[in-house]
């Protein structure tokens, strides 16, 4: 396997009118990496992908692939595989001809085409559907055709624009596993755009969280989830408690934060000043909840009243008021025990290492 398929973005910018929809993005994607752009709609993630693909012009900055600047190159010369949001399976061609399209456009000999298409269709388990047309296929099958078409000519880089957006939830998970498996087997670089955080975390080697045209954080899924760089990332990726307060004292990498009437401790990865505003971040599943009388271990403690109980199936989510209008969300695995009642007095605790002080 050759180590090819590195992408480097340097100061890449896209303007529509006066707005920068993509604002000076710089990052390096490694060969063979599964890299996702994750963000809300309008965050510039799709525009970034379209600039990599060549469908949108780069207004500032450069995009390099394996050291060569491709910023001004026509899409058809970039040699990427592409999977589109609406699949874009050609309606006038059958499955075989759809998958053969990139090979025919490259003027490959007939026997090569036959062999490669068979290989690609077998890879996505559509060997028996070669003669069908798109309208005779389910959404999941069309998706597989789109993937087979994107990999049939063995590109070093495959770009995917929300490819699973139109599928229902169960099918989506299966396809995630399948795409990841194909990517791992072929060792290609995949650049993936999604607004679904579970999808991004399940498949990606690294994730770039985008917001308003900028990258808020880049990292492996667990890192981005556990140690968000700021409040936006914490809130966007999974559920999060963000309690607003004021910095009281810094002791090395620990901070004392005043929230309501309470003083809570948390980690920090930045430098903070006394009395500045900040938020305490802690994931709901890291907070322990117990009936008020019993004391427990843990670094941060608070007591309060249950204000809401939400039954979500595998978990029960409590909203606990620990100070006037300061609420903490707590997730408890559904173990079959009856949940705590609304207005019950409870004690909460969580480890200092599980909480972070975030600014912004």
């Amino acid at each position, binding site marked *: 396997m050759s180590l090819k398929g590195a992408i480097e973005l340097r100061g890449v910018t896209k303007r529509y009118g006066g707005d920068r929809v993509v604002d000076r993005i710089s990052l390096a994607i490694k060969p063979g990496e599964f890299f996702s752009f994750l963000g809300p709609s309008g965050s510039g993630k799709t525009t970034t992908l379209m600039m990599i*693909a*060549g*469908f949108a012009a780069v207004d500032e900055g450069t995009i390099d692939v394996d050291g060569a600047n491709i910023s001004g190159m*026509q*899409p*058809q010369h970039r*040699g*990427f*595989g*592409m999977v*589109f949001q*609406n699949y*874009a399976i*050609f*309606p*006038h061609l059958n499955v075989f001809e759809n998958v053969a*399209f*990139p090979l*025919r*456009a*490259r003027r490959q000999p007939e026997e090569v085409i036959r062999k490669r298409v068979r290989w690609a269709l077998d890879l996505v388990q559509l060997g028996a559907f070669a003669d069908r047309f798109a*309208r005779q296929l389910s959404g999941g099958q069309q998706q597989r055709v789109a993937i087979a*078409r*994107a990999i049939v*000519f063995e590109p070093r880089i495959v*770009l995917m624009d929300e490819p699973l957006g139109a599928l229902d939830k169960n099918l989506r998970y299966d396809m995630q596993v399948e795409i990841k498996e194909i990517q791992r087997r072929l060792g290609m670089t995949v650049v993936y755009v999604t607004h679904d955080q579970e999808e991004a975390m399940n498949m990606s080697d690294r994730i770039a969280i985008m917001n308003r045209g900028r990258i808020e954080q880049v990292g492996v899924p667990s890192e981005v989830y556990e140690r968000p760089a700021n409040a936006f990332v914490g809130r966007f990726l999974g559920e999060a408690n963000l309690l607003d307060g004021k910095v009281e004292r810094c002791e090395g990498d620990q901070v004392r934060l005043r929230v309501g009437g309470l003083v809570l401790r948390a980690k920090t990865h930045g430098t903070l000043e006394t009395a500045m505003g900040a938020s305490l971040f802690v994931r709901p599943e890291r907070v322990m909840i117990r009936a008020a009388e019993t004391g427990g271990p843990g670094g941060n403690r608070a007591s309060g009243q249950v204000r809401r109980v939400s039954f979500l199936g595998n978990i029960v989510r409590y909203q606990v008021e620990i100070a006037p209008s300061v609420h903490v969300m707590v997730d408890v695995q559904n173990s079959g025990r009856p949940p705590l009642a609304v207005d019950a007095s409870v004690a909460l605790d969580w480890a200092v290492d599980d909480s972070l002080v975030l600014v912004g």
Partner: protein
Amino acid sequence: MTASRSALWRDPALLIVPAIGFLAIGFVVPLVWFFIETLQEMGSFEDMILEAVSTISSRAVVNAMITTNWIALLVTLLTLFAGYPIAYFLANSDRLRFTLVLFCIIVPYFTSVIVRTYSWMVLLGRNGIINQFLIGTGIVDEPVALLYNKLGVVIGMTYVLLPYMILTLFAAMKAIDPSYVRAAHGLGASRIYAFRHVYLPLSAHGVLSGCLIVFILAIGFFITPALMGGPSDVMIAMLIERSVEIMLDWPSAAVMSLLLLAVTLVLYAVYYRVTDVRRMMGA
């Protein structure tokens, strides 16, 4: 009872009743009456068949049918080759350019066909603008015969029928999802390859519909060939008019009309099949 009655009254199908009534009274009834009247004039059924056969196989009708179909074919091809790029431009340009070009195409058609045909005659005549230009620049010494021959008829009809082709093609092209062509480029197809193997096939039903519409309209054309054609370029509609107005030979006119109607209906059946196929393709 009342429920079903009010449901019937609310059926939107009722809205087409006036149109159908108008068509029946203004078109079907006179046509049927015309045929019955004229065929009765011929006498027995046997006479009728004989008359029909002799009319259809007469030299004048055969020649007119050949001329008509030949001109209609030429006009269809010319409108296709002239109309495809214009329709492509319309379907793939922004709002301003689209409005501007469409305006230029449509506005001349607000004036009557006769006015437009006469303006062509001003352009194409022996001392017309085009001939003056050709002689003035020294390209030709003698005026070129652009009028009162097949060339004149074809030019005039191509112009009159061009919008039908453009608008039919435009409708088909507008329905093509631009993501298909984009996907083709993304998968390595050059502009020409993507056009030939994606855009053209996806617009093919529009090409077929446009050609059929123009051909159907062209074989029944009267004013333009009558004004711009020569004595040897008699189209079937002119022959029918001559039989009715000059020869007062209604039976021949009826037979020729039936022939024209039959050809048109066959083509329309093909057209119907084509548009049906398009719907099946989901494009």
